């Protein structure tokens, strides 16, 4: 027996060694507080899946779109609040007012609100936050870049824009309206430790950067009733299959879903919150024909509208979830023109003759980018444009620089899904000569005055102006939109949430336990 033990001995060494390593590895693995999610949300904990990486808690780096907004909504208040139907209401600021030409926004702050570090939420703090956003190197900085901020007294905040800017209130509902504790703006650990006045505070012990972000209720929150959950946790799950799995097994209460998985989720008994947020289709840049002369021709761009079977695309690429469109404004927008939807029917022959009329019957060469997650449309693009003798080559873009390359205007034609909020928002972000999504910085003498007016008009005039802009875009085929695909957000049976205009995910304050 003792002889055999020698072999057992060596095996024991190995086993102990391995176990030791495993244990130590496990010992340094931080906590993962997803507790309470099993079996549905109690009033206690809400666990949400997030489908993108989170950049950290530097207030200047926060983003206004996508799923990550839910995370920062837990810890910071914004000056104004954006209701699900798009109406802007007071939040940290108890009242606000725009002057007549939309160049000055005045806000009166609520009194008596404190940050969780005990300092007061006052105009000085708000000013500091906005200044930080301007210079902090975040992607939303440009929104407030030109604004000057003043705090004449402790509860008054004045934003002044050199030109009419009707979006200022909207900006104050988004990341640009975040008010963080002044000390935290420059703290060395600001990426890890946010300090706000929001409904929750970060539970650092239960947080694993890049994987789980846990929050516990801020006991002194001034608007407690709006947030029924004691704890909120976010799990970063980039992979859709992982999210579906997590939903089905009860690891999370809610998660962003996709059109492709909507049927599966519904069949598993989950609720789907539907929202038509984006328009999907082709950007047709270089409308002045500087690099690709053909694109300067209206008829060419019109042909590129008529060569796509929109209904077929919705059925095939979006599983029938969504509606056909040829406009970049969503169907609730004041700019929307329902009667113009069929202005470009699917007619390949007509498209070909349009190309010939424009003098480009032999087509031209075109390079389109191929992006992760958006390349599913490239085969149909290549094929259909090919019918017009447009010779399409794909260039794969990857990593963080992909979007940058597109925004630089290198690829005038590309497939994308872009959010549509209010008419003014869409105009500012896609049409203005310096708009982020006007990638080739095109202008048109007929369009520019309309765009300028949009910043100051109100009411019925604003609507008429918006529609006029839309008409111009459609007639001149500045884009080739195909669909308003439905965005899906899944919740388990015990959790409810409301869709928000212009957001792919429900805002945090819309979540309730059923």
């Amino acid at each position, binding site marked *: 027996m003792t*002889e*055999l033990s*020698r*072999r057992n001995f*060596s095996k024991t*060494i*190995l*086993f102990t*060694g*391995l176990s030791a*390593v*495993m244990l130590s*590895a*496990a*010992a*340094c*693995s*931080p*906590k*993962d*507080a*997803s*507790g309470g999610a099993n079996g549905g949300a109690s009033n206690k904990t809400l666990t949400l899946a997030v489908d993108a*990486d989170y*950049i*950290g808690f*530097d207030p200047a780096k926060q983003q206004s779109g996508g799923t990550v907004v839910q995370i920062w909504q837990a810890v910071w208040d914004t000056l104004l609040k954006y209701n699900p139907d798009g109406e802007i209401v007071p939040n940290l600021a108890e009242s606000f007012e725009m002057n007549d030409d939309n160049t000055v926004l005045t806000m009166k702050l609520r009194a008596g609100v404190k940050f969780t570090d005990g300092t007061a939420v006052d105009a000085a703090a708000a000013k500091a936050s906005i200044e930080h956003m301007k210079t902090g*190197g*975040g*992607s939303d*900085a*440009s929104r407030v*870049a030109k604004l000057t901020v003043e705090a004449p007294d402790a509860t008054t905040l004045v934003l002044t824009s050199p030109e009419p800017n009707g979006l200022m209130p909207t900006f104050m509902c988004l990341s640009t309206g975040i008010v963080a504790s002044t000390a935290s703006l420059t703290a060395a650990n600001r*990426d*890890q430790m946010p300090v706000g006045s929001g409904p929750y505070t970060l539970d650092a012990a239960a947080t*694993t*950067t*890049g*994987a789980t972000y846990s929050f516990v209720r801020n006991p002194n929150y001034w608007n407690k009733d709006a947030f029924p959950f004691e704890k909120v946790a976010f799990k*970063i*799950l*980039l*992979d859709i*299959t*992982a999210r*579906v*799995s*997590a939903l*089905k*097994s009860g*690891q999370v209460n809610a998660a962003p879903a996709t059109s492709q998985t909507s049927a599966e989720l519904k069949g598993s008994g989950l609720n789907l919150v539907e929202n038509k947020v984006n328009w999907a289709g082709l950007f047709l840049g270089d409308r002045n024909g500087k690099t690709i002369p053909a694109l300067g021709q209206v008829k060419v761009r019109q042909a590129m509208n008529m060569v796509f079977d929109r209904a077929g695309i919705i059925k095939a690429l979006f599983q029938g979830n969504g509606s056909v469109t040829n406009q970049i404004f969503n169907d609730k927008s004041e700019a929307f023109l329902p009667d113009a939807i069929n202005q470009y029917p699917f007619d390949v022959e007509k498209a070909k003759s349009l190309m010939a009329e424009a003098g480009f019957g032999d087509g031209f060469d075109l390079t389109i980018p191929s992006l992760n997650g958006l390349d599913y449309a490239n085969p149909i693009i290549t094929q259909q444009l090919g019918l017009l003798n447009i010779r399409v080559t794909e260039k794969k873009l*990857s*990593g*963080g*620089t992909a*979007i*940058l390359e597109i*925004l630089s205007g290198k690829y005038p034609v590309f497939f994308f899904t872009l959010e549509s909020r209010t008419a003014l928002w869409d105009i500012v972000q896609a049409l203005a000569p310096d708009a*982020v999504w006007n990638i080739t910085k095109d202008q048109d003498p007929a369009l520019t005055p309309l765009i300028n007016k949009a910043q100051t008009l109100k009411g019925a005039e604003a609507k008429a102006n918006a529609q006029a802009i839309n008409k111009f875009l459609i007639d001149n085929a500045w884009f080739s939109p195909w669909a308003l695909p439905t965005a899906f957000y899944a919740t388990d049976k015990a959790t409810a949430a409301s869709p928000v205009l212009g957001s792919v995910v429900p805002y945090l304050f819309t979540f309730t336990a059923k």
Partner: protein
Amino acid sequence: MLQFLLRKILSGLVLTIVVTAVTFMLIFNNGTAIARQVLGQNATAEQVAAKVQQLGLDQPVLLQYFKWLGNLLQGDLGVSYFTNEAVTSVLATRIPVTLSLVLVSLFFTMLISVIVGVAAAVRGGWLDSTLQFVSVAGAAIPNFVIAIGLVFMFALTIPLFPATGYVAFDYDTAAWARSLVLPVLAVLIGAVANSAQQFRGAMLDVLGQDYIRTLRTRGIPDRHIIFRHALRNAASPGLTILSLQTIALMGGVIVIEQVFALPGMGVLIGSAALQGDIPAVMGDVLFIVIVVVVVNIIVDLVNGWVNPKARIS
């Protein structure tokens, strides 16, 4: 013995330096593009230029590498270009995941391979033929194909295990174990097929040796011969198999982590490489090389303990 250990550590260090240097210089990319990526699409040219200087991207590559090395020796792996988080803390969250997968897989691979390999070598017959066949099949199918098949099965048909996702060890050990079942299985099938086959070969070689025959004539019972003498002699080639398997495993888990959505080093290296987050990539490569070096040292040490001849050479 000490000299032996020191020599092994030294060669491991050299390897680490060579590998990290080569990787660093190869993935060094356009500094301006990296800075622009970090700052976002709305950054001005001056901001970009300032960032380039701040990150030291304008300096010669070799100099940057030595700086990195110097910081490393002080325990500082730099800071992610994108999240400003210390690379060491990023690694700290990812390493346990990957280590869980690698170590558990290694453990079971060796355990099963030894058992199956010994049985096949000693008994021959149908067990051996089956092993031959299974090993070729198992080694041929890429492990991520197996992984996909498993996800397919458990995501679509049998809800026994969570198809994807990971739960930390000390949060909920049972759930941790369950979340590892499928990934480990995917790795195991290919790894065991390979290792068992090789261990069988090593065992057969040993059993064919003269001294085994002589020991039988001394009247020593067969089970002692197999488990005491043969196994001990097969340990040496067995350890070689183990170290090779570890190297293979470090590469193999990358795709497995992707398929099963495990937030480990593999997923990190993919996204970091694509983004050009050099500090994170370097941290990742460093980790992988260190694991390989450590495993090799341990293997050499155990080999020295088991095989007296190896201590001298």
